[in-house]
C-alpha cells in the first residue's frame, strides 16, 4: 500500500501539489482525475521517485521513500508517452529490463501474445507505431507481477482489442489484491475500472472516495457529468 502524507511540490514559484494526503490500498483501483495541469502526473512521478518532493512524504509498504531505489522493484509503471532506443528490438529492451531486475527467467511470451506483439518482437523500435510502443510499455509494467501498478493514461492510443485486453488484466490484478493507480481522461474507462476516485484540482485533493458516491452525487447517476461539474470549479460538492 502507498500512503502519501502532506505532499508539497514547488517548481520555482509554481505550487503544483499543495499538501496532498491520500492512501492507495491493496485490492483497489484508484483513478486520479482532474483537468490538465492539476498535478496528476507530478503526484504519480513523486511516488516513483522521478520527482523529488519539496515537503511531505511518500510511504510504500510502511517504508518512507527517500532517494531509495529498491522499492521500485514492487512497482510496474506504464508511462503516458513511450519512447525506446531506436535501434533495439522489443525483445532486446524486454531482455534488458529483465536483466537489470535480475529476473531473466520471467517469461514474456504469454503477455506478448495477449497484446498481439508476438510478430513484432524482433523489429527495431524505429519501425514501430505509437500504439505498439504503448503496448510494449504495458507489457513491461505487467511483466514482473508487481504489487503496485501505476498506469498513466493506459488506454489512450490503443486499439479496441488491446484496450479491452488491458482492462481485463487490470481488473484481474485488482482481484489478486494489487494496488492500482490510474489516470485517464476517458470517463467510461474510469467508470468501468475504478473502485475509488481521487479528484485533483490546482494541486489539492477535492474529492477522495468510492466511485459510487461521486456518481450519485448530483442525482444524474452520470460520472462524466459529476466530474465535469467539479472541474468547472463548483465548490459546493465538497
Amino acid at each position, binding site marked *: 500500500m502507498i500512503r502519501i502524507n502532506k505532499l508539497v511540490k514547488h517548481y520555482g514559484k509554481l505550487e503544483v501539489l499543495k499538501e496532498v494526503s491520500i492512501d492507495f490500498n491493496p485490492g483497489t483501483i484508484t483513478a486520479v482525475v482532474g483537468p490538465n495541469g492539476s498535478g496528476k502526473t507530478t503526484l504519480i512521478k513523486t511516488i516513483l521517485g522521478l520527482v523529488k518532493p519539496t515537503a511531505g512524504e511518500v510511504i510504500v509498504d510502511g517504508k518512507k521513500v527517500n532517494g531509495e531505489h529498491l522499492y521500485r522493484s514492487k512497482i510496474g509503471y506504464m508511462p503516458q508517452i*513511450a519512447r525506446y*532506443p531506436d535501434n533495439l528490438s522489443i525483445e532486446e*529492451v524486454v531482455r534488458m529490463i529483465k536483466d537489470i*531486475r535480475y529476473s531473466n527467467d520471467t517469461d514474456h511470451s504469454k503477455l506478448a501474445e495477449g497484446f498481439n506483439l508476438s510478430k513484432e518482437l524482433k523489429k527495431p523500435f524505429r519501425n514501430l507505431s505509437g500504439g505498439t510502443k504503448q503496448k510494449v510499455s504495458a507489457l*513491461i509494467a505487467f511483466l514482473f507481477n508487481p504489487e503496485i501498478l501505476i498506469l498513466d493514461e493506459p488506454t489512450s492510443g490503443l486499439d479496441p482489442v488491446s484496450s479491452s485486453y488491458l482492462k481485463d488484466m487490470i481488473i484481474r490484478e485488482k482481484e489478486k489484491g494489487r494496488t492500482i493507480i490510474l489516470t485517464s481522461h476517458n470517463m467510461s474507462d474510469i467508470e468501468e475500472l475504478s473502485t475509488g476516485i481521487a479528484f485533483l484540482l490546482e494541486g489539492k485533493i477535492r474529492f477522495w472516495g468510492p466511485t459510487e458516491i461521486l456518481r450519485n452525487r448530483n442525482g444524474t447517476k452520470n460520472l462524466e457529468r459529476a466530474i465535469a461539474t467539479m472541474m468547472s470549479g463548483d465548490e459546493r460538492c465538497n
Partner: protein
Amino acid sequence: MQLIWKIVRYELNNLYRSKWIILYTAFFLLISYVMFNFESDGSKAVLTLLNIVLIVIPLVSIIFGTMYLYNSREFIEMMLCQPITRRTLFYGLFMGTSIPLASGFTLGVSVPFFVFNMAGAYLSDLFILLIIGISLTFVFCAIAFLISVKYDDKSKGLGFAIVVWLFLAVIYDGLILFVIYFFQDYPLENPILVMSILNPIDLGRIFFMLNFDIAALMGYTGALFNKFFGSTSGMMISVTTLVLWFFIPALLGLKWFKKKDF
C-alpha cells in the same frame, strides 16, 4: 558496477547500429585514408589529422551527446522507474554514449594507418593522436551531459552546446591573440599559460606538441609551455588538467542528475 555494464551493453548495441556512429567512423576512415595515402611522412599526416581531430571531435561529441540525452528523455524516465540508482543510469548512459564515439574514431584512424604500413616508424604518433582524440571525446561528452541535464529545453541546450564549442574551438584562440596584442608591453607568460590550461582543446594541442618537441612550430602557447615546464612536467600538467576537464563536468552533471525532477 555490474548493473552499469548491463546498461552499457544495451546502449552499445543500440548505438553501434546508429547511422550517425557509422557515418562518424566512415568520416575518419576517409580522411585518414587520404592523409596516409598522399603523405609519405607519417608524422606530417598525423599532425594534419590532429588539426582536424581538434575541431571535429569536440563538435561531434558535444552535439551528439546533447541530442542523445534529449532524445532518450522518455527512456530515461522509464529506466528510472526500475530498481536502479540514478548514479548507475548516469554512468551507464555516459559510457554508452562516449564509448561508441571513441571507438568509431579509433577504428577510423587506425585502419588506414595500418593498411599503409605506417606502424614501424610512426606508431607513437598514432598513439598520441588516439589518446588526445579519446580524451576529448570523454571531455566533450561530459560537457554535453552537463548541459542537457541542466536545461530541459532541447533547443536551448543544443544552442548552448554549439556556443560552448564555438567558444573553445574558435573564439578562444582569437581571444589569446587579442590579449597578446593589446598587452604586449606586459609580461604575459603566466596569464597565457592559465588561459590555455582553461581550454581542453588547447591542452590536447599542447600535449601533442610537447611529445614531439615541435612546440615552436605550433604557436605561442606551446612554446611557452615547453619553456616553462619542460617536456615531462609540461606533459604531466596538461594530462592532469585534461583529466580534471573530464571529472569536473561529469561529477557536476551527476550531482544535478541526482537532484533533477523528471
